[in-house]
Every structure is written in C-alpha cells, then in structure tokens.
C-alpha cells in the first residue's frame, strides 16, 4: 500500500510541475504580463517599473526556477491587486469556505443518494425504481449553473425561504450545497442501485437469507456493504467534480471560496494569485483521488496484499 501512496505522490508532484509550467508558459508567451496586468492606461514607465519589480526582465528559465524555488518554501508571491497581500494568505483565508461547501455537498449526496439507490434496487421494476432512474438521469444532464439560478429563483425570490447569496449559517449552505451535490447525487444513486442489484442477486445474500436473518439486516448489512465499494472508487472523482464545480457555484452564490477566487484572479489577470490558486486546486484535486485509492484498499480486505 505504501508503494501506491509513494507513486501517486510522485505523480502529483509531476502534475503540479506540469500545471505550473502551463500556467507560467501561457502567461509569458501571450504577451507582456506587465502590460496585461496594468491595462490599457499604463504608461511605459509604469510598465517598466512593474517588469523590474516582478523580475520579468530576467530570462524565462530563471524566472521559472525562481518561482518553483519560492513555491517550495511556501512563498507564492504577492497579489497585484488591492494591498498586495501574500498570495498564500489569501488562499488560506478562502480555503475553509470551499472545503466546508464541498464537504456539505458530499455529505448531502451520500445521505440522499445511497438510500435512493437502495430503495430503487429493492423495489426493482416498480414505479419507485423508474422514478429514481429518471431523477438520476436528469441530475446528470442538468447544467449546474443553471439549476443554481433556478433554485435561487424558486427558493429565494419566490418563496423567500432562503437567502440568495453569501456565507453564513445553515440557511446559506442549503442552496449552494444542493446545487453542487446534484450531479453527484444522481451518480451515487445510479452506482448504488447497480451495486445493490448485483449484491441482492448474489450467493452471499442468499446465504444470509438462508440463515434466517431479517430482511433489514440482509439489505443494510450484507448487500449494502458490498455495493458501496465501487462508490469509494469514485469518491475521489466526485470530490474532484465538486472542486471544479466550485468555480461556477461559488460565483453564482457569492460564496467566498477559492473557486470564485480563481475566477476573479483569472479575470483580473492577477498572475501570481492566478498561478497559485490553480496550483492549489490541482493539488487538492489529485490528493483527493489519492485519498480515495487509499480508502479503497482499507475497506476491501481483498485488496490488502501485504500483512495477513
């Protein structure tokens, strides 16, 4: 197992380097960064000053290496907007909000998706099953940003139950988390349903029934435990979807997270911030996938090659 972790960590590092190269290269290659940052009204002096300030007059290779060197020390530069805060600080201040939202969305998807999938499988062939499948299909076809707006319209504007945007208590979490969770709920419902159908037909479930166990135990202990395994494989992918979906969802709901930060930074051409946020999000993305792999091995005794 440690072999897997090491290898993935290595891959993560390589991916980060590549990503940083891409961001770095794109930025430099497509025009003078200083000019882009300052906009159209900058004077030549300002541009040269900024260039020297940011070290942009040095050779590209040197620039890149300096960047990497600094990054490894935790210094990702300073934002060019506002009061030039260190980028790391900005990111760290906005990270919790995103993690909370993603966590809430994941919890919601699991809490809703798994029971739905189980019921659909147990009541296979009935209207319950059919409705669950229709719901799952819709959930994976509806564009996230649109449903967010629709939800805002219905629940904030019309019903006035929930706030339209902002960060705060439970009522602020409701709509953004639901929007973010939609795709994942649908996916989880489908996966659980398929897994349960297979499990319910299996020999070990039949043996469990043969033992005379109650139907509840058969379904929720024996069948479900085996059908959540494939879910774990996808867990990383789900979280990753949420991280990327964060960009859109946070923007719509005015959520102070790193998704919206990334969007704003990119629009503002705030290079240091932009680079850093993209790198952090990539790192998160890949770490989550790694976590899912580890979890999978922990949960399924068949995958444990070492030890007993």
């Amino acid at each position: 197992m440690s072999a897997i972790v090491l290898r993935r960590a290595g891959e993560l590092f390589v991916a980060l380097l590549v990503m940083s190269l891409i961001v770095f290269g794109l930025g430099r290659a497509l025009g003078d960064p200083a000019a882009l940052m300052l906009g159209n009204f900058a004077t030549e002096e300002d541009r040269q000053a900024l260039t020297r300030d940011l070290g942009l007059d040095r050779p590209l290779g040197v620039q890149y290496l300096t960047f990497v060197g600094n990054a490894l020390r935790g210094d990702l530069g300073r934002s060019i907007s506002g009061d030039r805060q260190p980028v790391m600080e900005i990111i760290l201040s906005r990270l919790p909000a995103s993690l909370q939202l993603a966590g809430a969305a994941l919890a919601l998807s699991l809490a809703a998706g798994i029971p739905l999938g189980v019921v659909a499988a147990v009541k296979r062939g009935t209207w319950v099953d059919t409705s669950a499948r229709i719901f799952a299909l819709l959930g994976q076809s509806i564009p996230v940003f649109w449903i967010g707006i629709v939800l805002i319209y219905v629940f904030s504007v019309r019903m006035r139950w929930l706030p339209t945007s902002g960060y705060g208590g439970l009522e602020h979490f409701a709509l953004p988390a639901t929007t973010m969770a939609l795709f994942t709920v649908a996916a989880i419902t489908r996966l659980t349903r398929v897994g349960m159908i297979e499990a319910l037909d299996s020999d070990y479930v039949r043996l469990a029934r043969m033992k005379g166990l109650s139907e509840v135990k058969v379904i929720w202990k024996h069948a479900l435990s085996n059908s959540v395994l494939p879910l774990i494989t996808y867990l990383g992918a789900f979280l990753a979807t949420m991280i990327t979906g964060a960009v859109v969802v946070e923007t719509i709901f005015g959520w102070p997270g790193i998704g919206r930060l990334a969007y704003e930074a990119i629009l503002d051409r705030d290079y240091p911030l932009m680079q850093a946020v993209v790198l952090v999000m990539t790192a998160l993305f890949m770490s989550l996938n790694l976590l899912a792999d580890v979890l999978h091995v922990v949960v399924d005794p068949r995958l444990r090659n070492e030890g007993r």
Partner: protein
Amino acid sequence: MTAPPHAKGHEPLLDVRGLSVAFPGRQGWIPVVEDMDVRIMPGEVVGIVGESGCGKSSLALALLGLLPRWAGARVTGQAFFDGAELLSLDPKAMRRVRGDRIAMIPQDPMGALNPLFAVGSQVEEAILAHGRANGAQPRKQALELLGSVRLDDPETRARQYPHELSGGMRQRVVGAIAMAGGPDLLIADEPTTALDVTVQAQYLDLLRDLQRSRGLSILFITHDLGVVATLCDRVIVMYAGRKVEEASVSDLFASPRHWYTRALLDSVPPLLEDRDELATIPGTPPRPESTLAGCRFAPRCPNGAAKCREEEPVLAAAGESSVCRCWFPLPERHRDG
C-alpha cells in the same frame, strides 16, 4: 445442537406434493420444475440427480422461498414440513424456519460467503440469528462449530477472510453456518462440485458423520452418481424438470429402470475396465421453453417408439419401492442374475 428427532413412526419429515415452478416468458409460463413429489423420512438421505438445468436447484430454492423475487416465479403445489405447509408460510414464519429447521448449503462456497467479513463473525451471526447463544458465548460456540466441521485451527481461521481460505475450507465454513441453527433437514445443492476430488471425499465423510451423529435428514442435489452411491439412501432422477425415476440406491445402481438412468450409469467409466471412448448421451436436454409432445427424453432415447413421441408417460410403480416414468421401462435385473 439438537438431539436427533425421534422418528414419529412413518411420518415423513418433508412431504412435497406436486411442486411446480414456472417463470414468466414471452409467450406464457416456462416450466422449470413440474409436478415433483419428494418424501424424506427423519434421518434419511435422499439424492436428486440430473444434468445442469434440469430444475433441481430451482426445486431447492422454491422450498425455502429463496427464488429471486424479481424473477416473478410461480410456485404451485404443497410442501409439508413437520406439519406446516412451507409454500404458504408468510415471510416472517419462513424466516424462522430457515436455518433453524431447514438449512441449505449452496454450490459455490466462494460466492456464498460475504467477502467483507471475517469467517468467524459470519458463523457467529448465524448462531445469534437463531437465539442459540448460550449467554454471551457466541464466539466460543462459533469456534466449536468450526471445529465440528473439521476445520483445522479454528481460532486462526475464524479471523480470516473468505478469500484467504481454500475451497474445501470455505465449504466447511458454510457447513458450520448451516449447522449453526441445529436444523432437522439439510438441503445440499451440489456442495462438492466446486471441490477437488480428494477434498470431496473428506467433505462427504464429514456430511455422513454429521448425519449420523445428529440424525440429520439430507436432500442431496448433484449430477455426480458416484457421490450418490456414497452418501444416499434413496435417489430421485430428474430430467427436464420432471421426476423420471425414484428408487433405493442399491436398487437403482443394480437395476435401473429408466433409459436415462441407465445412460447416466453407463457414462461413468468403470474403474477396472479399459475403454476406448467415453460413453456419452447423444443430444442435449430440451430447453424449458420448448413444448414437446410425448416423453421429454424420447429424442435421445435409444428405445424411441411411436408412443413415446406422442404421449407423455406417467409415473408408475416399478418394483417394491420404486417408480419410473416410461412406457417401456427396462426390465428388472435381479441381484443374483
């Protein structure tokens, strides 16, 4: 553990009458088991022999109410077990019967054990399910059970997972689980098919000992005649969902009456003879959907007569305690002849 049930005179423990199982098909019901009668006395071992797909597993599953619900099977007939009629029991009552009075050993032990739980805990679960835990000792009882099925080193094995055990060991665990409720009737659905030959012999030994020590009745489903000879008292031969012959083991092997039975016996290569070819039964069994008139075996029967193809034969007495479904059964071979 229960004491062996005292034989209540000549009352059968299991009395199945006219059991039929059919599945919905595109053009009506497809019969998989037709009009089966099975009678098992306390302490008796009855074998059901037939090719794959002849319906023997469906028969067993139907008795325990374990046919998959979504398949929409239709089960008709009656099955009396110790007074109660199994097929009309409500789910809760059926659940109490399962494991406690009637247990089943399935064919594939790897699939039958939940891969995520240690083997010992699965046995414990069976013990707890029937309220047979003496105080807080289910762990100990589980280990005892594992020992009684001759699993070596039960302590270590109990903590292992199914994929860590060999096929033979797994089948013993399944046996322990089946015995946990102290059942009166054990239905064994091809339990040795997935095992190596040497392991098979040991397992059959085990079953025989369990049967003798507890007075267990066994319904043994198999396609292997050799196993039948070793373990069973009486045999039922099934073909295409129907019973075609039933006799005591000695009668059947010495003097088979149905042509199918004889073909089965012939296809087992004799130990001491040298044969150039393996005898097989030409053709294949009819598919359940096909609607043949006449005897189901007629197309493959060396004795095909016109009547066989037109009219389906009925079960008729063929000796003291045997029956046979054939218009032209083989003559009785006398033991000394």
